[in-house]
């Protein structure tokens, strides 16, 4: 089944693993959860030998254990979960994994945008059917959130702070009363949420101030802040994990040399340090330099070497991708990259030689092309 999909949702992709976990799970399960909280944690964070399982469960989300625990516990309680953090920190991925593990359905998603209306959260009408048969439950189109309520599963709301305040506030009654009334209908006009219903919302902390959440809504969510990964080791894990997945998806058979991964991580770490010490926006790259961005750079480099290169990932290609992905503004970003290349990469290339030297050359060439 996964072969037909460009990107299978977590519950499909890990269906077999989830089945197995469900079969051995003897812990108490809240509401209609398919797995007990501990198994959900195990699914997300992977197993260890000390867990005493017969098979290994891979780690799917990398980050502090307590974030996952706090998220699971929130979903088991009365409140919604709001994952907040910088772009590229894996909020949506965690939300997807949690929904997949808890209710085997991570696709009931509302994407918050400036154009999101209350209909997207509650329900709308099939106009032709309303004309033909009048308003009834059949002619009603329930939103993903309403469907989640009816089924007692997790509904997701991506980029909550992108939608306008009045739309956000439609969630208040859903989260506190746990029902939606349909005043257009005379009978059967209330949809009650079944046990197990909850909402996982994500919000981008860089969007703060665009559409601030009302305090009433804040009160109904527990906030879990996901920080940018700064530990080099876990970042390497994340990049390796996601890239392997991408390679598999693209059916590319290519080796990812660890030294190149080191170069990538090191250059991002350097650029982040530079951004942290910058005094104005002009001295900072526009990119947030998140882990997701690193994965993007690597993916780009891999695809490039696969289709236009000799099917080996080279430092030169990596440098080209890095410059290409990060240089968004000309001349500001290019100037920063130029400074970085000559101030940091060059001495390192001279000192360490090898792939740093190639990386240096590639970057230089890419900067020259773009300038």
């Amino acid at each position: 089944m996964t072969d037909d999909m460009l990107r299978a949702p977590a519950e499909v992709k890990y269906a077999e693993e989830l089945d197995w976990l469900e079969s051995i799970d003897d812990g108490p399960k809240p509401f209609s959860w398919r797995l007990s909280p501990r198994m959900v944690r195990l699914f997300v964070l992977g197993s260890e030998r000390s867990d005493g399982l017969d098979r290994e469960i891979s780690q799917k989300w990398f980050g502090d254990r307590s974030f996952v625990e706090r998220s699971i516990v929130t979903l088991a309680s009365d409140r919604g979960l709001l994952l907040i953090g910088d772009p590229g920190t894996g909020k949506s991925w965690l939300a997807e994994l949690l929904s997949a593990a808890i209710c085997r359905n991570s696709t009931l998603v509302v994407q918050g945008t400036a154009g999101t209306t209350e209909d997207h959260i509650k329900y709308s009408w099939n106009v032709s059917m309303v004309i033909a048969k009048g308003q009834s439950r059949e002619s009603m189109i329930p939103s993903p959130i309403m469907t989640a309520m009816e089924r007692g599963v997790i509904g997701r709301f991506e980029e909550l702070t992108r939608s306008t305040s009045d739309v956000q506030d439609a969630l208040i009654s859903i989260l506190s009363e746990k029902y939606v009334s349909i005043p257009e209908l005379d009978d059967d006009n209330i949809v009650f949420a079944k046990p197990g219903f909850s909402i996982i919302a994500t919000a981008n902390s860089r969007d703060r101030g665009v559409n601030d959440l009302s305090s009433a809504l804040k009160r109904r969510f527990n906030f879990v802040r996901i920080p940018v990964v700064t530990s080099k080791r876990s970042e390497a894990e994340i990049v390796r994990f996601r890239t392997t997945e991408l390679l598999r998806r693209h059916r590319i058979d290519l080796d990812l040399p660890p030294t190149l991964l080191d170069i990538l991580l090191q250059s991002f770490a350097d650029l982040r340090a530079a951004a942290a010490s910058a005094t104005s926006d002009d001295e900072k790259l526009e990119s947030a330099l998140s882990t997701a961005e690193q994965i993007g750079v690597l993916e780009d480099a891999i695809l490039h070497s696969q289709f236009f290169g000799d099917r080996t990932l080279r430092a030169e290609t990596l440098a080209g991708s890095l410059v290409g992905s990060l240089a968004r503004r000309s001349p500001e970003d290019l100037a920063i990259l130029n400074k970085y290349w000559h101030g940091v990469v060059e001495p390192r290339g001279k000192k360490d030689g090898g792939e740093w030297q190639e990386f240096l050359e590639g970057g230089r060439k890419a900067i020259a092309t773009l300038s």
Partner: protein
Amino acid sequence: MTPDTFGALRGQLLDAARAFAPTTGTDEAADASDALARILSGMVDDVDRALAEELEIFPVCHHSPASALAMVRRLREKQPKVVYLELCEDLRPLLDELRNCRLPVALQAFASDLDGFPPGAGPLSVVAPITEASAEYQAIAYALDTPGVELVLVDRSTDHVFQWLPDEPAEPARPAPSGGDEDAAERGEEAALHGDAVGIEIGDLRPRFAELEAHLLHHGKVRHWSEWWDQYVEQPLTGADYDTYRQVMVLIGSLFRRLRPSEDERTSRDEERERYMWTRMREHLAASGADPADCLYVCGAYHAASRVEQFGLASDAPYEIGPRTGTRWLYGLIPSSHSAIEAQFGLAPGSVSIAAATWSKAVTRFRDTPFRLDGQKGAAKRAKRALPPPATSAAAPVADRLSGFLSSPPALDGLDEAELLAWCVDIVRLARRNGYLASTADAIAVFETSVLLAGMRNRARPTPYDFQDAAVTCIEKDVVPGRRDVRRLCEILLGGDRIGQVGYEALPPLARDVYDRLEPLGVDLEKRTLQRALLDLTTKPELARCSDLLWILRRLLPEDAVRPVMGERRLGERSVQESWDLAIGRHQRSIIELGYEGVTVEQVLEQRLRRTAWDAKATAAVALGAVEDAILYLGGGRIADELGARAVELLSAERTVDDAPDVLRRIRRLLAYYRAAQPALPEWCEAFVTTGYAHYCTLLPTAFVDEETGVRQVAAMLGFLFSMESLALSLGCDRAQLEIAVLQSHPEAPAKVALLWAARSQLGVLTMAELRERCDALLANPLVVPSFPMYLSGFVQALEPAPALAPFVVELMSKAFARLPDAVLLPWLPKLITTLRDQAGELVPVLVREAGRTFPAALPSLDAFVPPWSARPAGAAAKAGPGPRPGAVRGGGGPAAELLSGHRAACDAVAALLGCDGGWQEIADAGGDPGEAAALLARHPGTADAVAALLHG
């Protein structure tokens, strides 16, 4: 104890080692299996060995309530006669002062006079913080307050601490625990209470390499070391009996000892310490003849599992204790705090507070009566009861408690619902007070979440850490409304930071003196809040002494310890009213550390002034600064004279003039002060002026040419020479020296050339007219115009030596503004402003005043304004021409002619257009014939009036 007490356990462990061994059968696999077996059985051997020791070893861990509880129980049961404690032996006298302090405080040893350490290593400082919830405090309190009990500190002296330190003095930094760093700023102050001292702790028990700790944390599913310790050791051991406690602690000590990096410098240092301690104990036992059965050796669990050959009373392995260096150590108590301890030893924020809370809870729960020093500050008064006689039961054979402990899950307490509820309610209240929109619903959510989290983490009841996580989850939203976030609030709730205070009696003489002398202010100096003191020195002249002291403290203490709000002290000035913000309670450590330098603050200040003036890098300006300070704070006198003499010495030895501006400013101030305050100038002042005169005359020609020397420096030299001239000449200097020096000067830089001209004009060699002519020539020469601003800068600086040039500088500046092309003028303007602000702040008023005198004050008069330098003096006009030229407009006065001659450009343009080249004619006397134009105007006055109104309006 029978030799095979732990036989069963050992067998079991060896079986386990075999079971875990890889089955590949290679040599490496066999080695690994052997190593594991060695470690596991070795650990049991260590426990066996430590327990079999004749001298009872009491293993402790720092800031562990379980250790403290076990200590209380053991001391009550055994009542030893001698307690050996793992603490620097030279800190012993300080322990008696602990009762005068509010804990936590730190024992400090301090040395600034180094002898035997590499120069530049000092000052050396060691702190050993003591909290109430620690096993060592229990031992100290028991030993000091029980008659007939001796407390012996056996660890190496503080001097050895530094002798044994590697070249890089800092301990390897521990990873900063995560979380809670948002309010680092607030915490910073308390956390910095220990300064940059080297910390020592009793019972340091922590994995010796990062991977082991990470492994334990990972598999223990906890976030930081304190949480691991609490969950896996602290809680199970809190209610355990003594044997279990001892065996488990030694086992953990042995585990960390065996799993450590080989060839570790720290390990060899620890082993050295163990040799030291055992040697000291043996010496003491031999000297005092005490029965080892009546003794108790309190040391870190790590040292209890020691394998050094000196271990045990039975050992007679020799060890020679190295001598101390000649460094003079000073000792004192300084206030400490929980957060300072956490920061010093890399513990998670809040962990020491939580340990303190756990301790007090455990004491109530188990109804133990902890020991407390008589008169301990900050503690509830308790009737002291005599200790019941010690338990006389003969030492029962030690049973194996480890097997049980290791094979069964720790027996944890059930959910203490009432406690958790109280926490939930309190945290919501606290959060509301700190700006959070928290409500009862949140309290319920926190309760529920804590229980769920604990369940998920395999704990029967939520620990404070679970509670903290739950509170953060439920209450913390996207922004922190106040100063503290929920994590910090939880820490406050669970005990909060405690900040110790050193009692008056335990303070060094200097600090006591400060407290005594500030008493008339009527301010409570022990409070940690900011205190405002108001001193009205006219109505209460007796407060002048307090004021003096406060000014000295201001000079010696950190910036915000004492801060004047109103009132200042400068040479020759004293305020009649002063108002001060005092934060003495907060800066107790700084005052105590001043106490290491002297007996009174005056003495300390005097020493410091001397030290700065006699420093190898001292300059004349620095010495003059010291003289100023000596006059301001110590009333001048002998010390000021000595420092002044030193300044003369330094000045004559100086080969650069970098400090000339500073020297000039300071000596001027001092001269003004002495002239006003004393009948005659002190000798050193006279010497300074004469030396300075000769010195600067000598250096002047070089300074003028030298590219490195700035204009400001040269200006300051000239300033010195000219403004001190009369005094210098009266003291026997010769003006010819200056004249020759100026003659010898041939600067090339434009600014310096301008300075030289100014100097020559001041000397009378160059007249003002000549000077003006030179400057006009500069302006007229298109090749020099670009560098004119530099000349001008030179003249601005010249105001210092020649203030009389102010009108000329204004003139020059006006000309520059009028005539310099924009391309030259505009880039230079910002530079002029910054130069004026940075270097000639005091000259700006002079310039402004002069400009105010020169330029008209009102707009209307500006039109008719002719700058004084443009209006030719009468004599010059007479020379220029014999009288009105032929054809001059007779009686051509009147507004129209004035207007036209005032704005000639338009007429010139018209004339050029018409081809008229007659030029301008002099206007004849107003008294002459009015002429045709005047007649015309008189006939039609309306137009002229309107124009006049327009122009003047």
